């Protein structure tokens, strides 16, 4: 039978993959994709808790819906920022976005 721990372990693995991609990737769009991965891991956690610990009043599903809405807004604004930086610096390399670095 499926257990809560399986879903939590899967979500933890997905979150760690997202962190790895967030730190090591150099393409700005791939950084946004890694953020989406991490948000999905959090969603999976919330859904697993909602199903196993609170199956009648499904508050985890409500939270997940909010997170999905906010992730959509984040993706739109993030990609707009990437476009603006690309017009400004003419690259999507994260190593060259160092306007505020010393």
């Amino acid at each position, binding site marked *: *039978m*499926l257990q*809560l*721990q399986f*879903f*939590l*372990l*899967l979500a*933890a693995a*997905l979150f*760690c*993959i*997202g*962190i*790895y991609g967030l*730190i*090591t*990737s150099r*393409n*700005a*769009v*791939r950084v*946004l*994709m*890694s953020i*989406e*991965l991490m948000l*999905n891991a959090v*969603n*999976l956690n919330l*859904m697993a808790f*909602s*199903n*196993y*610990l609170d*199956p*009648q*009043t*499904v508050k985890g*599903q*409500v939270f*997940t*819906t909010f997170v*999905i*809405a*906010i*992730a*959509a*807004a984040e*993706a*739109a*604004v993030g*990609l*707009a*920022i*990437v476009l603006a930086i690309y*017009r400004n610096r*003419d690259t999507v*390399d994260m*190593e060259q976005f160092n306007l505020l670095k010393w």
Partner: protein
Amino acid sequence: MNLAEGVQVVSFSLLSLMMLGSALGVVLVSNIVYSAFLLGGVFISMAGLYLLLNADFVATAQVLIYVGAVNVLILFAIMLVNKRQDFAPVPRAWIRRAATGLVCVGLFLLLATMVVVTPWAVSTQVAAGNSAIVAIGKHFFNDFLLPFELASVLLLMALIGAVILARRELIPEQPTAPAQPPALMLPERPRELVSAGASRSAQK
């Protein structure tokens, strides 16, 4: 183990394999267009996991919003900033990669230990199932009314903000000079003025 549990276990294994493989592909594949499509695979398998967790409404919302909107938006962004350049190699990049991998593996081990050790108070109630969507609607309009309305305001702000951030700063005042006609065409003969009564076809 009866048939239903077997089906659940098999579909969970398939979906988790698909999801972890696609997620690794998103991070590690060098072509970013493939990464974007693999991200769609992650979202689809996540919707399948939501179905396994008795949440059909959220699975539908996942497919609609993530696969239908966010993934398409990311593909459009890739098309807009598609500059095929090789990034200049950073000295000692492998140290960064190894340190990040170490930190990620350590974080995963920490989380896994926490998950396995903690005695979860698993409820024995029956899952809401098909009535979950009614419960979600009641939550939205009773105790989560303020976050619900704030989310709509936030979406409006994100819409306007994205338009303002992504539009071009400078609109060129005059259009650029018309292109020179190709050299193969003969220069046009200067037109002679015709009287007002003449038809235009007689001009040719």
